[in-house]
């Protein structure tokens, strides 16, 4: 059994603070420390920002589904959008030695989370699944 929380928002950047507040609460329930939780919140926020910018090209009235699952040993966060297919081969963190604005979001996500997977949905849309191991002693008994 997992504890599941689903959130559906419009792709409006003003709503990112709602996503962050939710992610923070979920991390607290999952047993993460304040600092660790703030990193996971950052990863979830960056993922949503990428959906808004790339899959929806800045359109604010599209749908983003965010599912949080607290499992036995891990927190899983799944993001689903219904925008244009993103070319997964092009999702890469940029080299950090280049001092230039932009391109840091993917690096932040992969630095914080243990596993990140992307897939294209059948017709249109994309799914991203991120996982983070729970601190020892936390989690849901299976």
């Amino acid at each position: 059994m997992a504890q599941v929380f689903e959130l559906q928002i419009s792709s409006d950047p003003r709503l990112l603070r709602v996503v962050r507040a939710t992610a923070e609460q979920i991390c607290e329930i999952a047993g993460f420390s304040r600092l660790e939780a703030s990193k996971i919140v950052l990863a979830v926020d960056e993922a949503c920002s990428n959906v808004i910018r790339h899959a929806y090209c800045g359109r604010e009235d599209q749908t983003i589904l965010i599912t949080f699952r607290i499992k036995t040993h891990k927190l899983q966060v799944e993001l689903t959008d219904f925008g244009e297919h993103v070319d997964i081969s092009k999702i890469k963190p940029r080299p950090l030695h280049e001092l230039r604005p932009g391109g840091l979001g993917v690096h932040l996500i992969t630095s914080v989370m243990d596993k990140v997977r992307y897939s294209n949905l059948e017709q249109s849309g994309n799914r991203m699944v991120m996982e983070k191991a729970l601190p020892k002693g936390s989690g849901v008994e299976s």
Partner: protein
Amino acid sequence: MNLEIKTVYIDPVTAVQVAGEVDLYSSPQLRKILVALTEKRTTPILVDLAEVRYLDSSGLATLIEGLKQCQRYKGRFMLSGISEEVKQVFELTRLVNVFEIHATVAAAVESVSK
């Protein structure tokens, strides 16, 4: 409002005091102010983040842009008041040594006056 920004002059520093959350929605507000300052070749510029509870990659990009613009005219670009949570973002992106970071506004101003 996610963000409140106030620009004050603390001789000889132009301090941009930011309060709130810097994210995809609010970072253009900060960018607009930094672009205006760097277009006027203002120096030294201090961005005080003491009241910033959250900063994402768009906030970082805004600060990098400000720093790079300032470097073009050999100006000085400083940050102050970075909380533990915000510092993590700089550390994860290895930007902590790229910026001149001071603990407080007073420390930044003093470093310029020396």
